[in-house]
């Protein structure tokens, strides 16, 4: 008879699995339009709520707090102010690729000119330049536009 016991000399086992599972996430009318405007004229757009007048970026159909449908697209500046920022310096698996994302990189929330909420993206700064809350940054667009967030390659500091 086998007895379940801790005295036995064996390793506890775990099974490893790394599954690749393709998804197709619809961007809707407004999300699609955002990337079309970048491809056509490197312009960023937002959308205004008819009730609270807040301008959201990226544009979306509904203002959550008001539960109101939005229609009025608004042209935004491609520059803005850093409202919150950090330097990411620890290794982790990027679920988009299944591999470690290269670190360090700067990640921030940017108040784009003309928008009332924040836009999240990475920030690239020349070596020796630190990015602080309140700094001005501007979008740098990718040469090849594919209809995805990386069509904005990164934001860069506007050096005084």
């Amino acid at each position, binding site marked *: 008879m086998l007895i379940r016991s801790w005295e036995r000399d064996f390793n506890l086992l775990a099974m490893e699995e790394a599954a690749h599972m393709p998804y197709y*996430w619809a961007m809707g009318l407004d999300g699609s339009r955002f990337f079309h405007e970048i491809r056509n004229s490197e312009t960023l757009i937002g959308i205004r709520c008819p009730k609270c007048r807040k301008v959201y970026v990226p544009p979306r159909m509904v203002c959550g707090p008001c539960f109101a449908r939005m229609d009025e697209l608004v042209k935004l500046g491609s520059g803005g102010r850093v409202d919150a920022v950090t330097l990411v310096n620890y290794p982790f698996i990027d679920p*988009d690729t299944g591999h470690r994302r290269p670190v360090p990189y700067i*990640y921030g929330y940017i108040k784009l000119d003309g928008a009332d909420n924040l836009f999240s993206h990475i920030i690239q700064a020349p070596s020796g330049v630190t990015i602080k809350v309140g700094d001005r940054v501007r979008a740098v667009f990718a040469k090849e536009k594919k209809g995805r967030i990386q069509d904005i390659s990164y934001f860069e500091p506007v050096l005084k």
Partner: protein
Amino acid sequence: MGKRVAITGFGQTHHSARRWDVNGLELIQEAVTRALTDAELTLKDIDAIVIGNMDHFEGINYVDTWSVEGSGAFLKPIFKVTTGGTTGTTVAIAGYYHVASGMFDNVLAIGWEKNSESDTTGAIITCSDPIWDRFSYSGAIPSLAVEASAYMTRFGITERDAARVTARDRTHAVNNPYAHLRTAVTVEEVMRSSMLTDPIKLLDICPRSDGAAAVIFTSEEKAEKICPKPAWIHSVSVRHDTTWFGDIDYVQMGSLESAAREVFRLADIREPLKELDMCELYLPYSFAGLKWMEAIGFCPPGEAPKLLWDGVTDMGGNLPVNPSGGVLSTNCIGATALLRVGEVAHQIMGKADKRQVPGVRLAMATGFGGCFWSDALILGAERP
């Protein structure tokens, strides 16, 4: 208005970085058995079950049915509730709703996680919007770091202030035999730990743990018959907003302000710092022990460091915070917020052993999740 409800039992596993001696079901069963023992009930007494975790940490779906061997829900009413970090408080509040409705006498709320079964940060990134946020987002630590950056800039808060929060919670954890990290750390050790994402260092952030918790909610008619000192639910609040990272106000913690205001109003608490006897707060990183104290209303904005350095929130202070060691010592995500509720219940029941705060009559538990949403509960020794 719902019926009165009390907590009559609480059980938790011994938490650690990797519980490979048990699978998820067996881990859940460990907490459930301890909760039943604590309440002196058997599974036969349990009328319904609410369970929660975060699906993508283990890659397990339909956790409600998958877990019946662990939860005891075989052919019983069971619902799964998953709300990110707040999962634990949400299962607690859902358990409360079940009993408050008058339809069930004893309801078991379970939260669990085996964080060792995946890359926690990778899994958390899958919570962010795949089109807009996932490319730049790097998990919970940086999203908390950006909050800290905005808060520090506004009030001149220092990394040392935050380190004192870790030192407090980790010192408290020494008294908790279930905690994952049971060694005390000093402010200097926190300051010397390696920088993960500015300004958060290794010891400013919670660990990732394997663990489970179970709490039993009982109707007014039964509670005092089965439990000499039940912990009564005085008020609850759920405040969940949006998942657009760019819509978050990184200066204010609006969801927690709103949840706290609501539970205090419902429980008729006007001066929380004076009236509450202790708290178990979901503080996943050290800076939350400053900024979120202000959001709750324990002090005006920018003044939390004084409360902290004066020892008000230490064991022996006027308002001990996290006698269990809190989230900075144990973080089995789906169980984390339920541990806050269970620990508060045990404080009121006088069962907190070495981490007991003397004479707890009124106390608070909170949950925190995802894009800065919040749950809050007030528990008391007196029938509300």
